[in-house]
């Protein structure tokens, strides 16, 4: 299982803030997870239509899309940050 979190407009487009995704793949990357999420619903497909607009954190650390994800990870998708 992967805990997937969404923030800001990614959350609005997907329609919810968090979900658990069954995940048994080994050696899978964030890109593989995105491909799977896009298949879940039209809203997911719209949210991830242009992944270049989205940033990702795995277990609360910024990573690139090539980073590995696996069972038990917390993966968050969000737009570039705008604090300060």
């Amino acid at each position: 299982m992967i805990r997937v979190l969404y923030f800001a407009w990614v959350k609005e487009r997907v329609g919810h803030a968090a979900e658990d995704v069954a995940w048994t793949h080994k050696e899978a990357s964030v890109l593989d997870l995105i491909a799977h999420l896009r298949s879940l619903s039209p809203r997911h497909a719209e949210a991830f239509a242009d992944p270049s607009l989205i940033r990702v954190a795995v277990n609360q650390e910024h990573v690139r899309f090539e980073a590995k994800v696996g069972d038990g990870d917390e993966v968050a998708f969000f737009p570039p940050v705008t604090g300060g």
Partner: protein
Amino acid sequence: MAVRVVSALFDPAVEMGAFAAKNARSGAVASFLGHVRDEAGAVEAMTLEHYPGMTEKELTCRETEARQRWDLADVLILHRVGRLLPGEPIVLVQCASAHRKDALEACTFLIDTLKTSAPFWKQEERHDGARWVEAKPEDAARAKEWD
């Protein structure tokens, strides 16, 4: 370590006074205070969303890095979340050091890198609706200068 993420309004005068008093033995204190801009009356309110847990972790990492790069006696990073009104304080960064160079540079480093790494997202409320603020390329360029 002093990282605080708060939803309540804070008083910059109280925070700055307390930090200065606590660090009276340091020769230098530098502060950066950010306010919510009203963009000539166009912005009615600003809502700050964040990633609880990661926010504190990222800000603590920034503080740790600042302490490694400069000789600092004390650091405060205070950031608000939730709904804010124009003119309200949104972020306060303070650094204390023996001499001004460390405090000033670390303070600039912290606000520059916080802007591109801490997981906060601003949504502006304007008369015609709400919109997510887009990240500015110049902020990313400024943060990169510290690499």
